């Protein structure tokens, strides 16, 4: 099962609460309504019974005599008006008269009649008769303390049940609507509550220790958990920023400090009186020192890379052929050694937004990698096409190539492909990546193990 997001969880919980609340509320309402209506009904029934006894019956003669009331309405009419059924029994419990539903069947009433006969007290009951629900009152008819009969009066409550059914239907509909509504509301609310968290996630995602100045601000109760979290987060970013900048400063300073002894060593080597035996050795040492220097430069670059504020010029012209001649010179030895032909097809000048130095770093890394990881006696091809929006550059080699796994990591700092026999530190491409990120340059890599690699960029 897919796991729910916090937001969905929030919304669901909210919905559940709303639903539960609704159920409780409605049950209470329903209960109260039912009780009230039954109470009301019984009140009505006993009033009606009293009215019948005083207006339609004459009991003082020791027997049951029927009469019309003051308006001239008979008992039958009265009962019709009230939509009631009635049964009148004499002292021996034999039926004197029956009205409405009680005409056909009154066996169900017998136990109650017996009970009232014995107790001489009115009794309220609910019965089902002829598929109708009835609220019934059984009243003893007395005169001077002598029981001379029994009046059974019933009112159909089927209408009431119908009303209750409608209430349930309404409840179901309302319930459904409220569940749906509360889910939506809950979702929105959860979203709003979670906004700071989402912002937080975005900030973390975009976190770049150079540009962490955008700390989060949330308004609210300082005791609020989210506010607390964000404040802690802000404090943490400040500390991290501090740490990162100190680390960078350290690397920068260290690299910088190392340049002086390096220069000292190199210049000393150069003034060393050399004999034919030592000359070659000295050159080797010098080469090593320059290699150390190159690595220091890369480290320095990694720590200090930032958008060149001095060239806001979006569309400057760059003499790309100068870059290529620098690169060719750098790779001269390697090309000869591996018998690789480097063919470059390019206009002399391209228009681009990236500064010369950075383009040089990018191209020199890609091309030197291509040569480095190419098989011997193969060709490395570089193509530059200028178009309206910029220039497309493609570097293709036929070499060891990379697996998917290797290609996925090639831009990681200090990453070096598996079984890499070539010299290197794995920083070249991470610098390239940083520059490309800075200038929103997309790098497309397609590589096949033992076949070769093709790199495409648009600058």
């Amino acid at each position, binding site marked *: 099962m897919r796991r729910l997001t916090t937001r969905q969880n929030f919304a669901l919980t909210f919905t559940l609460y709303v639903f539960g609340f609704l159920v409780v509320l409605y049950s209470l309402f329903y209960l109260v309504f039912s009780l009230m209506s039954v109470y009301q009904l019984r009140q009505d029934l006993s009033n009606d019974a009293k009215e019948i006894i005083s207006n339609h019956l004459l009991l003082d003669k020791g027997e049951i005599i029927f009469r019309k009331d003051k308006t001239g309405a008979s008992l039958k009419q009265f009962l019709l008006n009230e939509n009631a059924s009635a049964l009148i029994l004499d002292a021996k419990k034999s039926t004197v008269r029956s009205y409405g539903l009680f005409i056909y069947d009154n066996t169900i009433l017998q136990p109650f009649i017996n009970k009232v006969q014995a107790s001489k007290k009115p009794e309220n009951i609910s019965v089902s008769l002829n598929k109708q629900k009835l609220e019934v009152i059984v009243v003893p008819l007395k005169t001077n303390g002598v029981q001379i009969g029994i009046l059974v009066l019933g009112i159909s409550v089927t209408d009431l049940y119908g009303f209750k059914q409608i209430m349930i239907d309404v409840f179901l509909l309302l319930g459904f609507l409220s569940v749906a509504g509360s889910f939506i509301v809950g979702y929105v609310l959860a979203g709003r509550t979670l906004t700071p968290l989402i912002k937080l996630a975005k900030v973390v995602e975009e976190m770049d220790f150079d540009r962490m100045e955008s700390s989060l601000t949330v308004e609210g109760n300082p005791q609020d958990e989210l506010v607390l979290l964000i404040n802690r987060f802000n404090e943490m970013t400040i500390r991290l920023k501090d740490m990162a900048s100190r680390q960078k400063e350290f690397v920068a300073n260290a690299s910088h400090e190392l*340049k*002086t002894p*390096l*220069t*000292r060593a190199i*210049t000393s080597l150069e*003034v060393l009186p050399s004999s034919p035996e030592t000359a070659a050795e000295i050159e080797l040492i010098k080469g090593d020192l320059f290699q150390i220097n190159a690595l220091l430069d890369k480290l320095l670059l990694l720590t200090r890379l930032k958008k*060149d504020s001095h060239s806001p010029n979006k569309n400057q012209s760059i003499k790309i052929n100068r870059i290529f001649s620098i690169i060719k010179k750098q790779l001269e030895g390697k090309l000869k050694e591996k018998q690789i032909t480097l063919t470059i097809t390019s206009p002399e000048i391209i228009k681009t937004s990236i500064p010369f130095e950075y383009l040089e770093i990018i191209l020199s890394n890609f091309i030197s990698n291509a040569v480095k990881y190419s098989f011997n006696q193969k060709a490395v091809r570089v193509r530059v096409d200028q178009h309206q929006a910029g220039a497309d550059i493609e570097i293709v080699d036929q070499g060891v190539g990379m697996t998917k796994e290797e290609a996925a990591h090639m831009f990681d700092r200090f990453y070096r492909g598996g079984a890499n026999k070539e010299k290197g530190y794995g920083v070249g491409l991470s610098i390239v990546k940083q520059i490309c990120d800075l200038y929103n340059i997309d790098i497309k890599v397609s590589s096949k193990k033992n076949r070769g690699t093709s790199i495409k960029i648009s600058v």
Partner: protein
Amino acid sequence: MHILVIEDDERIGENLKTFLKKERFQTTVVNNAEDGLFQAEEESYDVVVIDWMLPDGSGIDICRKLRSKNRAVPILMLTAKSQTEDKVEGLASGADDYLTKPFAKEELVARIKSLIRRSAETKGSPIIKIGNLQLNINTTEVKLGNKIVNLAPKEYALLEYLTLHKDKVIDRMTLLHHVWGDDVDDFSNTIDVHIRYLRQKIAGKNNKALIKTVINKGYMICED
């Protein structure tokens, strides 16, 4: 050619002096910004090489101060920083070129020579011609017509300085400073001796002297 090197690291300074000397440059090395600024203002140098970071100030400040006093001497900045922004700042402050540390000797020499060429209005070409005299300041080859002339190091340096400042009268003190640096006594007649040798080796058309003596002032090289 006399070069002022302002570099706080003594060993680097000494090393620079040693190999610049091998390239026939007179070199004065000072180790701090104050002395450097003083030297650059007081004496005339052909190139000033300044380290970016000095114990008592930055190379950039020296640069600015010199430029604000209208000193046009070519300045080469030595920097341990290799970032573009630093280069831009260095060049904006009035340096003519920069070189990042560490550097190869050849690179430094090439930069210095190119600065000298540029400042001597040779339009960047390493070859200077005066009449049928031809001097390549990169290879230090001197030709008279098609004939190669062999010169002693000091003779060459003297000739180079004069040709780079052709048509201008150069006094003895200046020549001493630029060609011999500090290792010669001001009152010797070294210059006159060397000029005599030079004149013998390079005579102009019709054996006319290319190097002229301007009485009480100094020497000058010019065509005709």
